[in-house]
């Protein structure tokens, strides 16, 4: 069957709920006041979409004239995106109220952005992946500038928009060259063309491949294309920063792996060298520059660059272990990163005051539970067992060794050691320094507590019992090539 509307049911559900939120917001603007209803409505949309995607067919299915595919890989990523968006809605609910940006469009844009991510993960041709990327990015450009009256948010939004659109131009040119040389935009047909020629020899096709790496490398925040990351992460509302540090990165990696393993899988020798350089630069620059940061959002921005570097290592390895390790790592990254941002939100005050790392001094004595949770997330990101981050890094680096990239694995481990310094510095400041500010009575909403609890449980569970999720990840990647 070439046309099956049910195959995009999760996307339709999210789109429907997104528009419903917009309508409800307008219809009951004065009555609602608090707008709690909108948050619950969007959470309901996320849950229903997750149930619907879970119930989709277990076999690979192509629809819309073979441009859209539902396989286990797409399902895994759908659940991953929905999980991250759900957690972000939980942590933003009190935040957007505090910052006076409590507009219904916020939730709608989060959901529309998630639709773009799902399109990227299930696109079977370059057009679908491109459209998904744009739907995702355009929503996030708006979310970044959501604090309309704050100059810092405007500036971040402008920077992200200009650089993002610039990178889109490169991606598009790359797609055009690939289309011109292979005669198709369908990933599987490109794959058979490349396999038929015995690898990529045509310089135009090589250039197209390079330009696609540039375009997607921008979205995953890999190093020569990372200049926007710290500024945008710092300027955006904190909840949006949490959102864009996980979802879009996961979506860009989903597209990255689908394009390069499905379409160019038979000629990995050509692109692996380029990605090798990107991975080393990304890990090193991210970790080294993170050391000197004093603002926690900027530090987490550089840390997110470094994590993109680890994931690129898995892409270089390009074996089953590396790819399923990427899926695992992205899931672990959602828990630990959104958890860390949730605590940053709890501890900051109106107008995003209290974002300096020194503001965390003495937290361990004043709010021991929050400090323990933060320590857990930092340990997990640094890759200390028994947290999820350790298992993820273990899979990725052993995949690199298995594929013969021992040097790359060593560079990765060294970088991981460097990262311990700045992650542990936060723990040290929390527990071993006298408080410099008196923590105001924190107003902690129940929803954000739920989010932190889910993140803690997820981080520990993936770290202690990784085998179940790893099995699912391994089953998910079978359809990739």
């Amino acid at each position, binding site marked *: 069957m070439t046309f099956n509307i049910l195959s995009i049911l999760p996307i339709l559900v999210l789109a429907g709920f997104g528009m419903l939120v917009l309508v409800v917001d307008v219809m009951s603007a004065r009555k609602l006041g608090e707008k709690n209803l909108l948050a619950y409505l969007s959470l309901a949309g996320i849950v229903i979409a997750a149930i619907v995607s879970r119930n989709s067919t277990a076999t690979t299915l192509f629809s819309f004239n073979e441009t859209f595919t539902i396989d286990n890989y797409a399902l895994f990523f759908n659940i991953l995106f929905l999980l991250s968006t759900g957690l972000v809605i939980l942590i933003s609910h009190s935040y957007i109220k505090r910052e006076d940006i409590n507009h219904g469009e916020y939730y709608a844009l989060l959901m529309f952005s998630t639709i773009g991510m799902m399109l990227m993960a299930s696109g079977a041709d370059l*057009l679908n992946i*491109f*459209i998904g990327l*744009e739907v995702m990015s*355009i929503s996030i*450009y*708006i979310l970044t*500038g959501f604090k*309309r*009256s*704050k*100059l*810092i948010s*405007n*500036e*971040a*939004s*402008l*920077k992200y*928009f*200009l650089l993002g*659109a*610039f990178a*889109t*131009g490169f991606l*598009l*040119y790359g*797609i*055009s*060259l690939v*289309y*011109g040389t292979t*005669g*198709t*935009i369908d990933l599987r047909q490109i794959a058979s063309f490349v396999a038929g020629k015995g690898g990529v020899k045509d310089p135009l096709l090589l250039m197209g491949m390079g330009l696609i790496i540039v375009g997607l490398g921008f979205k995953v925040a890999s190093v020569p294309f990372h200049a926007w990351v*710290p*500024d945008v992460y*710092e*300027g955006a509302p904190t909840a949006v920063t949490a959102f864009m540090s996980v979802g879009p990165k996961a979506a860009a990696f989903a597209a990255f792996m689908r394009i390069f393993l499905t379409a160019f899988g038979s000629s990995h020798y050509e692109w692996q060298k380029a990605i090798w350089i990107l991975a080393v630069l990304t890990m090193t620059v991210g970790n080294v*520059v993170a050391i000197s*940061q004093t603002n926690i959002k*900027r530090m987490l921005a550089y840390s997110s660059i470094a994590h993109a570097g680890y994931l690129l290592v898995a892409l270089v390895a390009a074996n089953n272990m590396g790819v399923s390790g990427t899926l695992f790592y992205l899931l672990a990254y959602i828990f630990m990163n959104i958890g860390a941002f949730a605590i940053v939100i709890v501890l900051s005050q109106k107008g995003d005051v209290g974002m300096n790392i020194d503001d965390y001094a003495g937290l361990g004595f004043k709010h021991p539970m929050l400090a323990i949770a933060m320590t857990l997330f930092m340990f997990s990101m640094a890759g200390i067992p028994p947290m999820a981050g350790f298992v993820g890094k273990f899979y990725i680096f052993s995949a690199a060794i298995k594929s013969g990239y021992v040097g790359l694995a060593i560079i990765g481990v060294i970088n991981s050691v460097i990262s311990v310094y700045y992650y542990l510095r936060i723990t040290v400041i929390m527990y071993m320094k006298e408080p410099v500010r008196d923590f105001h009575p924190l107003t902690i909403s129940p929803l954000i507590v739920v989010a932190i609890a889910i993140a803690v449980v997820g981080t520990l569970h993936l770290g202690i019992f990784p085998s179940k999720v790893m099995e699912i990840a391994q089953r998910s990647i079978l359809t990739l090539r």
Partner: protein
Amino acid sequence: MITITHYLVLSAILFMLGVVGVLIRRNAIVIFMCIELMLNAVNISFVAFAYHLHSMQGQMFVFFTMTVAAAEAAVGLAIIVAVFRNKETVNIDDMNIMKW
């Protein structure tokens, strides 16, 4: 005789003009126009390839690119207006609140 090479060279030249414009101009709106130039340069190459390969996919892609460019223009101009309201300038050299 105009061959596909001519179209591709034209497209490459326009694309490079757009890239250079983004890199050297300082007005946000002019930079944005240069980005649009890049996207439309790509459209030329898509149409040329589609004609050369006798395939419709390239022409279809152009429609989607134009749609995306329109959506980007709407959002981008809104962002530039928001910046101008707070700062009264759209010169990107003045966008320097955040520095590492």
